[in-house]
């Protein structure tokens, strides 16, 4: 019997090597695969190309890998929260490809879906479109964007089952679903892992077919980036 469940994050990360291209779910620090990032930090994997909406903060999320200069190239849409990132980018110590957020999501979903390329209006007439094919449909201009290719995809879900089915919570969903199945191997870390059959088949956000490895994360810090509250 083949099982997708792995014991822990060490087992979940086997096969990750220097120079690989890796997708990371999450928006800001919300819904990031904390356990996998910490493990890549411990393993000190080098020369990574990371595809992620953001680059974490200086001491959490992908900031951990940035600090140790493990990232050769970053593909992201917004990196404004990370001073060390901006320093490495402006000093040209790291390659950076900035991608409109919707295009980033769609390029992941295209990879998941076997769509090699699609047209989008985002970035037409800007430097994002430089060197890319553009075309007019109706009275509007569009840019041709290609699907990403990646070796690993690390995602974080709220609940998962041993068949690899995933359910996300609140806005921690974000980029996680679209990265499932968008890389050769998708690794999901979940807050709660249950036996197959316990989740309602009608409420599954990502079917297990898109997930190769799943494990219950040892610990989720879930750091809040901008705590904003009202007084009672």
């Amino acid at each position: 019997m083949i099982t997708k469940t792995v014991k822990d994050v060490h087992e979940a990360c086997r096969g990750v090597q220097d120079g690989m291209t890796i997708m990371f779910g999450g928006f800001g620090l919300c819904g990031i695969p904390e356990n996998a990032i910490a493990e890549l930090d411990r393993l000190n994997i080098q020369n990574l190309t990371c595809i992620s909406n953001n680059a974490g903060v200086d001491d959490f999320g992908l900031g951990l890998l940035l600090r140790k200069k493990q990232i050769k190239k970053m593909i992201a849409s917004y990196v404004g929260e990370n001073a060390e990132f901006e320093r490495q980018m402006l000093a040209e110590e790291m390659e950076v490809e900035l991608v409109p957020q919707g295009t980033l999501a769609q390029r992941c979903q295209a990879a998941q879906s076997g769509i090699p390329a699609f047209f989008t209006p985002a970035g037409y007439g800007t430097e994002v479109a430089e060197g890319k094919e553009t075309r007019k449909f109706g009275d509007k201009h569009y840019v041709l964007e290609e699907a990403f290719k990646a070796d690993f995809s690390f995602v974080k879900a709220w609940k998962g089952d041993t068949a690899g089915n995933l359910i996300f919570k609140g806005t921690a969903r974000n980029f996680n679903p679209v990265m499932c199945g968008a890389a050769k191997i998708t690794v999901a870390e979940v807050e709660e892992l249950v036996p197959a059959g316990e989740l309602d088949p009608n409420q599954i956000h990502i079917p297990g077919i898109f997930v190769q490895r799943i494990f219950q994360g040892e610990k989720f810090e879930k750091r809040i980036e901008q705590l904003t509250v009202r007084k009672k």
Partner: protein
Amino acid sequence: MALTKEQIAQRIAKEVKDGYYVNLGIGIPTLVANYVRDDIEVDFQSENGILGMGPFPYEGQEDADLINAGKQTITSLPGASFFDSAMSFSMIRGQHVDLTILGAMEVAQNGDIANWKIPGKMVKGMGGAMDLVSSAENIIVAMMHTNRAGQSKLLKECSLPLTGVKCVKKIVTDLCVLEIVDGKFKLLERAPGVSVDDIKAATEGDLIIEGDIPEMKI
């Protein structure tokens, strides 16, 4: 007197109509939510994956799994939904969002906008702004009329890398309300106590000034 940021938000709130789905950018746009009339129903979309965004949570009720695109802790209102980033941009790219309000570093008189990069100095990334401005049919820019050095942000042509071309429809600054008409800035309203000459002096781009320009009501 020039408007405060709160007052800019207050003026923009009057553009929000019953039944609108609205995406608010970071900064002044975020404040708009506080001033929308409470006898109309408006749904706020945040591109990280929520429709039906509510106010900040009460102290101690914050949830790390519930934030807006500015990474602030928020709440959800009855009728809200959560979704992934691809679906979120289906809403935006597919023109299902009725109104987009965002900030800018520069706006040109043909409707071009720049707000994501100062070459060699500051690169935060475009986030969802390029998707928003290339798709939205109704874009209002909220910004100060001049930058910290006192230079006009309303230009004949943008000098910074563009976020989108010919997309801005309306601009609300601390000095006035402008509309893009025939490749120029048409002055619609003045801030209370701000003269047409004050606005002329603060605007590099070409202005269209027709008849008496009324003071805005907030």
